[in-house]
């Protein structure tokens, strides 16, 4: 599904990613761990193609196609989608309009919003005055309407209250076809700090990032336990 080959990325003249290699197979879910500033968000933003993330070297192959320099919307049309950590507010653009953009028509968005008790947000401007949890819900609704093949999630649990954590978890499970145990087609790459997501979504592999490099890969639950016990740096060291 996704193959990243020796990816070097610069942000505002500073080298942030230093030779990332990563493979995500069809139907697989991967988690990215790493402390603040290690380059996790940069990796996701680069995969989606946002400006300001300059690829200096390496390639990104998605579904067999080199998307390294492809415009954002073409990546989206190819089946790639992202939930941003802090998406911008779109004044005057209503959530129902946004969901129509994502799902192709108004009905899809309406049905999803009703299902997740978010119908009263349909007429509100996207992200305007939304709480942290509401932003995450709105992002995931948009992704469900988009129905992408590879979903990039940047800290989907941050700012979400305890009561809503399971709803967010359900939404992610649905996005990644977790109820389907054979021929699963949907893949995901999830940044998580709290690891909460592992309680809801069975991940196939975990990766620890440090200083723009992936230093450790393996079973995500074991890696997360290691991080909790010894910290990121120790965790990275022991696996070298």
């Amino acid at each position, binding site marked *: 599904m996704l193959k990243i080959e020796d990816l070097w990325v610069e942000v505002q003249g500073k080298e942030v990613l230093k030779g990332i290699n990563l493979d995500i197979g069809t139907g697989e879910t991967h988690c990215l761990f790493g402390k603040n500033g290690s380059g996790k968000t940069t990796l996701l933003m680069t995969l989606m193609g*946002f400006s300001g993330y300059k690829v200096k070297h390496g390639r990104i192959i998605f579904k067999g196609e080199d998307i390294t320099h492809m415009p954002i*919307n073409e990546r989206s049309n190819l089946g790639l989608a992202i939930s941003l950590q802090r998406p911008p507010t*779109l004044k*005057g653009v209503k959530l129902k309009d946004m969901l129509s*953009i994502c799902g192709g028509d108004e009905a899809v968005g309406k049905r999803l919003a009703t299902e997740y008790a978010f119908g009263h947000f349909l007429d509100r401007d996207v992200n305007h005055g939304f709480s942290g949890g509401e932003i995450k819900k709105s992002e995931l609704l948009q992704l469900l309407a*988009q129905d992408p093949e590879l979903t990039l999630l940047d800290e989907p649990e941050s700012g979400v209250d305890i009561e809503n954590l399971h709803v967010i978890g359900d939404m992610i499970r649905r996005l990644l076809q977790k109820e389907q145990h054979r021929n699963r087609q949907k893949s995901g790459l999830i940044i998580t700090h709290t690891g909460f997501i592992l309680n809801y979504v069975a991940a196939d592999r975990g990766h620890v990032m440090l200083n723009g490099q992936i230093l450790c890969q393996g079973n995500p639950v074991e890696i997360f336990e290691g991080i909790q016990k010894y910290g990121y740096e120790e965790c990275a060291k022991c696996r070298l």
Partner: protein
Amino acid sequence: MSPLDNSKATDVQGQVSDEELLKRFTPASEVEQLGNLDEIDPEEVQKLRRTGVDLSGSGRIGSFLQTNCNVVECKCGFEGVELLPITEALKKYDGLKEYWWKLVSRDKDTFTREADAGLDNGYFIRALPGEKVVYPLQTCLYIRNENVSQRVHNIVIAEEGSELHIITGCATHPDLTSGLHIGVSEFFVKKGAKLVFTMIHNWGDEVYVRPRTGVLVEQDGVFLSNYVTLKGVKSIQTYPVATLMENAMARFNSVIVSPDGSDIDTGAKIILKGKSSRAEIISRTISYGGRVVARGHLVGDAPDIKAHLECQGLILEEKGIIHAIPELEAHLSNVDMSHEAAVGKIAQEEIEYLMARGLSEEEATSTIVRGFLNVKIDGLPEELERELEAAVAESQHGM
């Protein structure tokens, strides 16, 4: 104060003097006049439709249409509202002494003097005491011939406890480019009354527009003004002045698009004279190469008043100019007055956010622009809201 008095810093080179401008145009009374509605062409009907005027009269309680200087339609199907050409109202009410030139001075400038000396017509609208009308009354001031100057004077009165919605469309014939519109309007909102006035401008590329407006909102009264201009025009200069008495409320919303070659100088002044009165001036402006001056002047002259001013501008073509001039003037300490102004281009991250949802860069830009212009206006009846949305959607065509 005339808007020209404090606009010297932003004067555009080559601007003609007011007197010179007047001389360029033929008075409306000296050109061919339209006899009745049937003589209006289908393409004119369509243009008026896009200006908020539905000549079939559906969804309206009444219609007033003046082309050049002739009133071709003036009827109202609702008994609680009186609608007359202003020339008839002046006769019927003995010169309308309490209202005529009471909120705008005859000697204010060249244009008010011109309207005083050579009046073509205008409308008189009065909602009777306690009468509440939800459907709008529509008025239309229409210039139908090339190079004509139209001079109108309007009086609108919402009597005590009444509620009235007016949608007014001002336009020129689709084939003509040049003209001058001078419009004096005086609005009287009596005790506890509510007046919602929505104006859509749809002129030609060489048309000069000079409205001169005064508003008085008495105790507990509400005045909401929505002003929309989305098409090319040579020059608009408008600066209504409203005075609010105790517990009264006024809000001026403007949605302005200035294409290349347009020079639009708009704004409002609100004097909060009565205790606990409230005022808001909100403008959304876009320049596609034209110039916009967005003024706002709030004067806090009584205790417990609350007033807010908001100017937001987007420059979408490099040549464009947006000049926001927000002014707050407090005369005592017990006031709550604020303003915010922001001018710039569309944030790249907003465009890219929409692109990540599948839109091309152009589609993303136009979605953001449409959203920016779609100001949610509280207190606007659904009917008028639809008109505004339609006008904004319409403005996207061909841009």
